[in-house]
């Protein structure tokens, strides 16, 4: 037995050397041989590294729905250059390890990719995309994550410390009697950075930030946190935490006598179904900001909205649902305007064409508004300040941060 084991180990070691001799960390070269005839693509496949199972599966489903809706619309209108487009959802289940292997697979054949979602998978998988020269639409993460992988990623948002302060300033100015504010902050991903940007906006409005109340990620009871906040005697409160936690904190505040909901501001990342289902009518009057205006009255948005509601038992679209819808349309525009053929022998060059086009797209017609990019960063996207009434967001003010 010992001899067999020793020999096995030596053989394994030798095999290891052989593997190492042949191993590559870079992506394999495109597999197809050069065709003698002109290549004709039969389908544009756009892979989407998403979370279709696991803790954020519901969000993943909304994002997937948006992307597939765009593909359906494009195909109804004749496809991209007459060729149908297909969005393929690839489930990473929020596993960084699965994300790396799935991204590694994509680097061999994909013309362009969407995702990954969310940040842990972005961190694990995007370095592979960068090393392999695969452009991927990281359309639901903050600028601070996307910029680490430029130019092989694209940011759907401007730098946090430029885009957020104006909308928070606008909120503070709506209630001039707000002099002192506390902020509830959950320590996750880009949220502390967003909280810091809120402080910039508050200080610009002449408001004093009394304290930051840390919300533990595993908190289930919020009484002590609320007591601590109220002990500071704030005039207003800002929330940068998970949606369900924000709703529960607001309920706790109201149970302890907080009356003026207009002096409560919720950040965009908490604007999802859990906020409204947990908070219910107790959220009436609460202020919230986000990047899209669901009250927009355009045929395109109303069709999207009605189709979403039909497929989701009447639920309004989640605020990030349009992001990958717009991403698919941007890919369509890039392919049509750059002459991309989908020929595997030109994979490397055509990836760069799509990348450069999208990173500097001009006047892209998104679902909600038009915008332009410069080096992967949007220049003129607005933010919207709303007031919640009966589970709906009513537009209060549109704010356009300037970062040109």
């Amino acid at each position, binding site marked *: *037995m010992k001899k*067999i*084991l020793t020999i096995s*180990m030596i053989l*394994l*070691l030798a095999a*290891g*050397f052989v*593997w*190492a001799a*042949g*191993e*590559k*960390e*870079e*992506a*394999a070269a495109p597999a197809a041989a050069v065709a003698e005839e002109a290549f004709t693509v039969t389908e544009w496949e756009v892979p989407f590294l998403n979370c*279709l*199972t696991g803790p954020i599966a519901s969000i993943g489903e909304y994002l997937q729905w948006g992307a597939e809706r765009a593909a359906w619309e494009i195909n109804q209108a004749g496809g991209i250059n007459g060729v149908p487009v297909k969005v393929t*959802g*690839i*489930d990473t*289940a929020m*596993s*960084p*390890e*699965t994300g*790396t*292997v*799935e991204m*590694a*697979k994509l*680097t*061999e054949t994909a013309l362009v990719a969407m995702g990954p979602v969310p*940040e*842990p998978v972005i*961190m*694990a998988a*995007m*370095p*592979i995309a960068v*090393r*392999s020269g695969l452009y991927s639409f990281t359309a639901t993460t903050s600028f*601070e*994550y996307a910029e*680490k992988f430029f130019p092989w990623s694209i940011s759907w948002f401007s730098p946090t410390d430029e885009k957020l302060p104006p909308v928070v300033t606008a909120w503070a100015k709506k209630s001039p009697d707000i002099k002192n504010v506390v902020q509830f902050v959950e*320590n*996750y*991903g*880009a*949220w*502390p*950075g967003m909280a810091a940007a809120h402080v910039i906006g508050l200080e610009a409005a002449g408001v004093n930030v009394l304290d930051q109340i840390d919300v533990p990620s595993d908190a289930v009871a919020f009484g002590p946190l609320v007591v601590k906040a109220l002990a500071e005697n704030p005039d207003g409160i800002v929330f940068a935490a998970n949606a369900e936690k924000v709703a529960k904190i607001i309920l706790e505040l109201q149970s302890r006598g907080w009356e003026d909901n207009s002096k409560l501001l919720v950040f965009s990342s908490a604007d999802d179904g859990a906020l409204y289902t947990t908070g219910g009518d107790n959220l009436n009057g609460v202020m919230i900001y986000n990047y899209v205006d669901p009250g927009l009255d355009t045929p395109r948005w109303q069709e999207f909205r009605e189709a979403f509601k039909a497929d989701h038992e009447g639920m309004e679209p989640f605020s990030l649902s349009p992001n990958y819808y717009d991403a698919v349309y941007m890919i369509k525009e890039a392919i049509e305007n750059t002459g991309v053929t989908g020929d595997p022998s030109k994979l490397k060059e055509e990836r760069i064409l799509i990348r450069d086009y999208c990173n500097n797209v001009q006047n892209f017609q998104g679902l909600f508004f038009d915008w332009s990019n410069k080096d992967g960063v949007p220049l003129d996207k607005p933010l919207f300040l709303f007031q919640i009434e009966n589970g709906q967001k009513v537009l209060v003010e549109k704010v356009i941060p300037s970062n040109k």
Partner: protein
Amino acid sequence: MSLPLYYYLAITSIYILMTWALYLPYRVAHLHFMVVANMAISGYFGGYAATQWGWPFGLALLVGIAIGAFISFLVSFGIGDAPTFAVVIVGFTFIYITKTAIENWDVIGGTMGMFGIPVVKNLLLYVYIFVLITGFFIYRFDNSRLGRAASAKFVDRDLATSFGVNTKYLGMFLQTWAGAIGGACGVFYAFLMNSLFPDFFTFHIIGTTMTMLFLGGYTTLWGPLLAAPILWGLPLILPTGVASWKQIIYGIILIVILLLRPEGAVTRKFLRKLQVKLKLVKMA
């Protein structure tokens, strides 16, 4: 070698090592989840040393192993001979403390994470050499007096003590060794992913490695070698519609194995039978 195969093999090796890091303390009935905290601490250390101090991978690995061993050694003074439940609680606590410390320490990236850890050529070779060396030493341990002492303690602590086994020192030794392996895994993981995020090192590693340990077999080192590539690789090759059911598939496999073979797929009895058959074949 194709890139997907490279990452599949690399992550398999890390899961093999982490499962062995659980296997060793479990030889004395300790579920020593602190190895996940060791992985996080050494991983972040290795990443920071490489990005800020320009340390080469080898040096980061050696120091990462030493850090993992040292922290586990210190903690083992308290839990080297503790009941299993206490060891579990300490492990969970350390994971929480480590994650909180990482999230609140901006110098190592905080909640944003750490970016730009350099690529290491031949990382796959290095990690499999480490797997071979670790496997060799675990094999020697299992077939030594220490291994037999561990088995005695697993069955009955008092009986083992009556045979002269120093159960505390044995527990400390195994926990320290497991910490060293956990630390190595952290450094390998950091240089493989080239970035780190606090959520990389949480309870999902415990769930996955526990499944590998108990499905593969917790009485021999061969169980993880069999279970890791299969359990980790299975969802990657299944069709998307089936892969989304992987948690249910894992659960069913776990239940079936625990009912039919409670000690896991590869047991000592199975190995002895295999050994006998091989001898018969040799004699024939």
